[in-house]
């Protein structure tokens, strides 16, 4: 029950493998979004608590550990297509993920 004491490893996320090919290290217990922001990646986000859906991204390969039920924010089709909320995703394995980082640039 207590995830405080689990022995999760650091993982690696390859962001936009077809275009930008950025490699991101996700320390154990950290979310994909926070790791990206701490690394200076301008990942779209708003609430950071899993309620707005702004940080959603598509996992192309690998396995994430969702911290909440994404069904409240994402549609069934999106979930089936591999979309996750980066602010509520830790990694179970190394992953490849697709995210439109230009969304934020467009707004600025």
């Amino acid at each position, binding site marked *: *029950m*207590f*995830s*405080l*004491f689990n022995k999760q490893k650091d993982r690696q996320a390859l962001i936009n493998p077809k275009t930008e090919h950025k490699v991101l290290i996700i320390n154990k217990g950290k*979310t994909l979004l*926070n790791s990206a922001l701490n690394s200076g990646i301008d990942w779209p986000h*708003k*609430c*950071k*608590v*899993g*309620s*707005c859906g702004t940080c959603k991204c598509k996992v192309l390969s690998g396995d994430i550990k969702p*911290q*909440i*039920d994404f*069904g*409240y*924010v994402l*549609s*069934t089709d999106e979930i089936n297509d591999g979309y996750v909320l980066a*602010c*509520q995703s830790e990694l179970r394995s190394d992953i490849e993920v697709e995210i439109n980082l230009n969304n934020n640039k467009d707004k600025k």
Partner: protein
Amino acid sequence: MKLFVNARYLIVPFSSLVTIFGIFQGGVFSWIGVILFGIFTLIDTLTRNIHLRAEKDINGNSFGIKEFQYVVMYIMLPVFILLQVALAARLYQYTSGFLIEKSIFLGLGFESGISFFNLIGATLSTGLWAGLGIIYGHELSHNKKEGFFVSRLIMALSGASHFTYAHVYNHHLDLGHQDDPATAPRGRNVYAHAWLSHAGQSKYSYDLEKTKLTKQGKSVLSFHNKWIIGYLYSLPSIFLFIWSGGVLGLVALIGVWSISNFLLEALNFMGHYGLIRKSGNPVEHRHSWDNDNVFTSWFFIEIGRQGDHHVRGETYFWELDDVGAPNYGIGYFSLFVLTLIPSLFRSYVKHLLEDWDKNHATHDESEISNKFKSLGILS
């Protein structure tokens, strides 16, 4: 420093245990929870001018120990269950006609049986400390692992398990806007807000489940529905109180839940009263009131650093800091007393809201503020 930073958040755990001890002890000690509430209101008022920043080591890391703080928060679940068991035991003694006499249990003297007057004291004490315990339900609602489930159980002890979902999916997304039932608009008093906010959050939580289950092709009237499950978590409390006190037990439980939910909604009321955010715009520090004098910060595990909390919702309470959000200038206990007298509260916040309109509000927010003023609602 590390020991001090972590130990200072133990005021509620120790006070809750003292309250439980008082109820088990019986007699006038049944009132100890109420007396503690009064003493803490006094301390909070006397320390209203002392404000501290979050302490960090030379590397900029917090002194908070996550494992320790989480163990404390998890332990608060059985503590709050014990609080209800203590009151239920007294209800059982009262309705069973136990004689009021000195007894000894495990070498410790206590008063067996209880008078109606002291039963009221035990009920008020339980309600107040169950309500103050909601701070752990709030903190754990932001932990999406087992902490989220513990949060649901803690809130269920007050019949408010819907809070955990509504707080994260509704309040954090919509605060400062009419879509957030937990935000009190200008002109509303705490008594009206308690009902409107509670019912609004419960409805939101139901609608959230309905939308999700409909999307998934599942029945709303099923055990997939977290809104229904949340209320089922409250059944053990209902059974316990009816078994121990019959109708009087049910009345006592309604009393406990009313007090604890009133305290919860009073915190919501104080957290964002009268602040305005245009829908679609990001939540920023100016959309929350800070209450961060030293005693409030330690007692309420930094829940009063609302400005920082709402912008960094994923941040642990011991890392929250003063971010320059609008500040009431007094602590939650002191402000709570003011909210109980609506005219006094409005008088207190009038100049604070004027300052907010002048120095914090954006053009869009000022326009909405002016609509309130055109209706004669100034604070």
